């Protein structure tokens, strides 16, 4: 217990000494203050004492509390905490493991009566402490702002703390692994960023091909209905033959989209799911905190003929595809999203502990 407290105390001092920790904290508080300065009324939005009249952003479209919840979920968590603040946190914590395994520093730690696994994991959780403190301060301040300005005290916001920390831990385990193997902060940071880019690419590919697959699934249903209708109506072969061709072609497109989606989905299954982890907050707020935003106007996103970006034969609205896609995403359970991601992280940490325990310094 004395040793653990000493390591945590040292971690606290380390955080205290890192300027980037305080810079990130200051920016977080600035963003919350900006939320507080924003207001919404029946004519538009207000910033401090200025008022901007907006046709579609006012309390006639957005209830006041939904406006603030939307700001928190989309800009506060979706943009600030899960992107910019995470990058700053990675920059700030990337040196934690390389610093520990540097000659002269590691000798002092390993020569104490403390197990190597415990030592490594304590240092690892020190890095997570950085993000935990940042997210906790931001979230609690946001709850206060939404409570006072929006008139809705929303405890579900607190879910952002574990979700963002878990999201960050997927990346930080890679950072710790590379830092341990190379002892280089720069390499650890670069590889982590590349890994993040890679899983973002896989995630985007999976989402896109899923939507394409859904689009052609809908398309196939429609063209099959058209064919059945033609056959039922007793249309001649000249009419049904082209329809049959269309069904075959659509089936082919659907198979291709499904096949590519399967591979993206398989790759994503074994990788950490960063975007979906953060999206869990949206899902929870939609289900439990009344964050139900109106869908954007479909007109602007409709293709010229197909009504969507995938060029389907039938007219299928992009909005319908997105709704079906959202429903499929919502069907994915916690075990698939967080469980498999944590399993990936656990395997990486297991390897780190094994390597750290076996290595000579």
């Amino acid at each position: 217990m004395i040793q653990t407290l000493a390591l945590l105390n040292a971690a606290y001092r380390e955080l205290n000494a890192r300027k980037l920790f305080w810079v990130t904290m200051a920016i977080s508080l600035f963003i919350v203050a900006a939320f507080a300065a924003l207001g919404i009324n029946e004519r538009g939005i207000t910033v401090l004492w200025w008022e901007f009249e907006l046709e579609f952003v006012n309390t006639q479209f957005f209830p006041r509390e939904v406006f603030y919840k939307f700001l928190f979920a989309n800009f506060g968590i979706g943009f600030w905490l899960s992107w910019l603040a995470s990058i700053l946190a990675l920059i700030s914590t990337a040196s934690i493991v390389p610093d520990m395994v540097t000659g002269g520093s590691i000798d002092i730690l390993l020569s104490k009566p403390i197990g190597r696994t415990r030592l490594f994991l304590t240092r690892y959780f020190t890095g997570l402490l950085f993000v935990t403190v940042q997210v906790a301060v931001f979230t609690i301040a946001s709850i206060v702002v939404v409570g006072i300005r929006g008139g809705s005290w929303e405890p579900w916001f607190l879910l952002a703390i574990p979700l963002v920390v878990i999201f960050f831990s997927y990346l930080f385990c890679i950072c710790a692994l590379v830092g341990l193997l190379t002892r280089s902060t720069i390499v650890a940071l670069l590889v982590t960023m590349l890994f993040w880019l890679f899983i973002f690419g896989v995630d985007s590919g999976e989402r896109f091909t899923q939507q394409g697959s859904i689009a052609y699934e809908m398309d196939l249903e429609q063209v099959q209905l058209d064919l059945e209708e033609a056959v039922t109506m007793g249309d001649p072969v000249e009419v049904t033959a082209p329809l049959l061709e269309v069904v075959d072609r659509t089936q082919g497109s659907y198979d291709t989209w499904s096949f590519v989606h399967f591979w993206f989905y398989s790759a994503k299954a074994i990788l950490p799911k960063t975007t979906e982890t953060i999206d869990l907050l949206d899902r929870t707020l939609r289900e439990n905190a009344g964050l139900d935003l109106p869908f954007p106007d479909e007109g602007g996103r409709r293709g010229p003929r197909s009504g969507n970006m995938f060029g389907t034969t039938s007219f299928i609205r992009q909005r319908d595809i997105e709704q079906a896609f959202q429903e499929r995403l919502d069907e994915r359970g916690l075990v698939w999203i967080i469980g498999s991601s944590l399993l990936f992280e656990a395997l990486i940490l297991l390897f780190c502990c094994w390597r750290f325990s076996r290595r000579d310094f």
Partner: protein
Amino acid sequence: MVSETPSIDLKNVSKIYKGRIHALRNVDIQVHPGEIYGLLGPNGAGKSTLVKILMTVVRATHVEGTMLGDPIGRKSTLTRVGYLPEHHRFPHWLTGRQAIEFSAALCKIPRVVRRRRTNKLLEQMMMTDWADSRIGTYSKGMQQRIGLAAALVNDPELVLLDEPTDGVDPVGRREIRDILVEMRDEGRSVLVNSHILSELELVCDRVGILVKGEVATQGSIGDLTADSQRYEVLIAGDAPNWLADFKGSTIEVPDAGTKLVIPTADPESIQPILDRLRTEARTILSVQPFRESLEDLFLRAVTDPESGLAMKPGANRKRPPKAAPPSTPPGDSGVGS
């Protein structure tokens, strides 16, 4: 001072890196309670590796023996051992006081005790005025003092110091030597790695010289230099032709006079020679007892007997000839890894 159970009793310590670099080869070393043991050797001889094996920083390829009665590699033993690594680096954001207390806490020392010991050690290292400044602002010598304090904060029975005087000024070196002697007088065992042979010579009871991962020689400085003890008699004029009567005596001709070298540590043995020189009315310019210094001993150990040149630094990369594995004495509690 020497008790029956050595503080360090190492046998057949070997460390092979990447299957070909032999950092240590069958090293046997004993350090007794209340003894200061100096570990010498050229760069890359394996001194730091040996100490790191004792402190579980490096895993030995093969090791038998005990440290403070426990098998090598047991973590719990380290609560009774103090260690100052070479080029140690405490986090720069800690103050000197915090660094010492951090070391103490990792050795499971309760808060009240560690505060008391920290204050005492800060005073002993003359760092009280700087105790609450960050280590990042310290000079090398100040960092070394804090490192030494951190090594001693757990009141260890055995202290391993890797280059303890590195970067320390002459006054500080003197103080560190005094601390080593104090620790010995308190019954602790001290193992010191150092390149500064003159300092080791002043405090070490025994020394071991590692060359290319093997113990070239070890023992007390007196024993190791016994063969080199002699008297040198400088006289004016030519050498007497009767000197051959005294076994082993030789003649050297320096710039002025003639030097008679008589291989003995016993002053009685040279009296007949002096009497005869006086009888012949020869002028005796000087009579000096002579013994090899630790530096002479060291240089002799690291010189290749075939080429007469100093051996190249670094570990031996060649594979040793195959030999029968060393036998483990019955009941030996050592571990191999």
